[in-house]
């Protein structure tokens, strides 16, 4: 089903230059497509950046976007991430108010999803969770119920299994 619109992920290796992100974003916006999530950081080589983008699109569109990305001078390699063979993770930081009566429920949630309490102040705490999209969604539902005050969520990162 190539005309099915679903979440697709692209890995892009680029020169670490000031306008490269604008060029990549422009490639998406020029076709009217939204970037769902983005994650970017320098690699072990500081002049090279790796960017991972997820977007909702058809197979055909993603193929065209990848061709166009590869045409950009500062893109060294852009390719589709094959979804069946990857680990994927997102991370969230969430701030909750922590009245006495909620402590136990929070501890239980942190324990159940290998979360962490990264900061605790009087009456409030910051929690950290990592996981795949489904896990994160589930944790977020629980956090909402516990009165989450603020949330930061990273883009998705991927790692292909068994490749050098």
């Amino acid at each position, binding site marked *: 089903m190539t005309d099915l619109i679903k979440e697709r992920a692209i890995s892009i290796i680029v020169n670490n230059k000031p306008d490269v992100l604008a060029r990549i974003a422009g490639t998406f916006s020029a076709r009217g497509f939204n970037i769902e999530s983005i994650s970017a950081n320098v690699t072990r080589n500081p002049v090279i950046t790796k960017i991972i983008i997820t977007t909702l699109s058809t197979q055909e569109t993603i193929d065209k976007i990848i061709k*166009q990305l590869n045409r950009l001078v500062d893109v060294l390699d852009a390719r589709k991430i094959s979804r069946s063979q990857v680990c994927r993770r997102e991370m969230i930081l969430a701030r909750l108010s922590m009245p006495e009566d909620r402590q136990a429920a929070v501890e239980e949630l942190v324990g159940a999803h290998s979360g962490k309490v990264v900061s605790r102040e009087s009456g409030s705490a910051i929690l950290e969770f990592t996981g795949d999209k489904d896990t994160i969604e589930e944790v977020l539902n629980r956090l909402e119920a516990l009165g989450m005050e603020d949330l930061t969520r990273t883009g998705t990162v991927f790692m292909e299994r068994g490749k050098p």
Partner: protein
Amino acid sequence: MQQTGSQILFKALKEEKVDTLFGYPGGSVMDIYDEMFRQNIRHILVRHEQGAIHAADGYARASGRVGVCLVTSGPGATNTVTGIANAYMDSIPVVVLTGQVTTAMIGNDGFQEVDITGITRTCTKHNFLVRRIGDLQGTIREAFQIARSGRPGPVLVDLPKDVIQSVIEADVPPAAVPPAEEACPDLERPCNEALKLLLKAKRPLIIVGGGVILGKASEVFRSFVKKLQIPVASTLMGMGAFPGTDPLWTGMVGMHGAYYANMAVSQCDVLMAVGVRFDDRVTSKVSAFAPHARLIHIDIDPVSIDKVIRADVSMVCHCGPALKTLNRLIDEQRLTLPKLQIRHWHRQLRQWKAEMPLQYCRNQNIKPQYVIEKLYQLTEGRAIIATEVGQNQMWAAQFYRFDEPNTFLTSGGLGAMGFGLPAAIGAQVACPDRIVVDVAGDGSIQMNIQELATVVHYGLPVKVVILNNLYLGMVRQWQELYYGRRYSQTDMTQAPDFVKLAEAYGVKGLRATKPEDVKRILLEGLETPGPVMMDFQVEPEENVYPIVKPGSPLTEMSFGNVRAVA
């Protein structure tokens, strides 16, 4: 030795064998213009920056070299944007040097500051903002390399004033940059597949596009066609890649394509597209385009492959290497396309050509097509023709026969009115010994009419042929055909007296009002040394035919009243 940014810039330009700049000075580039006094380089001072970029583009199209344009920051830079987009759409190698405010000022809304790299990000092949003088020489080199390699295109280099003014110690030795390495994939396998398809074909057709001209592959393309005797249709941008006078020539395809070309595409069983990107003006309704054909597609840009039409065999490479490989395989294996196999097809094409050639009805008024026909005859098909955009452009494409590449300069992808006159200037600068004619409409000529001053300034013998119908003709034609004859804002009756206007600029002005004047005026114009502007007052409501209504199959052509007379 100490060198300023300006000196390094000129050194880098000379390294790229640049001998001509098209430009317009201003505050941010004054140091460059000051240094120009000491440099042996030709500068053509245009009268508007849009003229500079189009002239650099016309220079590139006519010469096959990179055109260079130099303008100041802010409005100087933004005035080039249409021309940059134009070069981008038609894959023309141009390097645009723009001045910029000082690096410290960038982002502070300085006087004449715009973020030109941001503005042109989506209409350049690449662009650069040079932040350090140490990067200048390498950036210029890279800009030229990018502009001319692969699928060519415009590259913009933004030059902050302090970078240009600053001084660098010692002569930076030129870094050894490997020459443009154009990766060529293994062509033998796809070429064999292509030949297998072609040799089985009963109704083979080639569409040639601008890629063959840009790739300087016309010669090898012609020898390929000769070997297999396959009919050749063309896109607008491909005109001249194959001789318009050859018996195998099957005309231009598309919205205003020839009847026989559109029929041939719609009936062929194998279509070979060489250096073509399948613009919507070529395909019209995509699902009805070449419906019976297996497609062989050769293009340097991987993005073009499978973008509009899925290819059965594709090659991502310059047209030249692919065609050379095809020729070699044909020779080695002594391949031919049996005459018997394609006899019916050739007969069919001859019949279509006879049934409905490109034609028009004559009356007591000057027909614009007649002007182009006469221009073709009087120049013996040897002129370089630049066009504006609209009806004039289509009539030039239909009624002038182009035998050589780099002789038809037209704004194909962008359709930018005002292109023709400055493009003709660029072409005349590149080819001083050729006849260069701008075929114009009365609407588009007024978009860059100021460049007549440039023509006179440099004594360029450019000839301007205005097909003056007192309308924005193409839009009026659509209004007539598709908008119930409501001529909304297309009446251009309030026009200057073009003869007087020409004379005011110092250009010879001529006018023809009757068909019997046409030949005499053209002859006088062509024989007069120096620039001439000829005002042909043509049939006001003449239409370009055939026309395929946008979104319709190519077979659904309208012919107006032409068929009745034929």
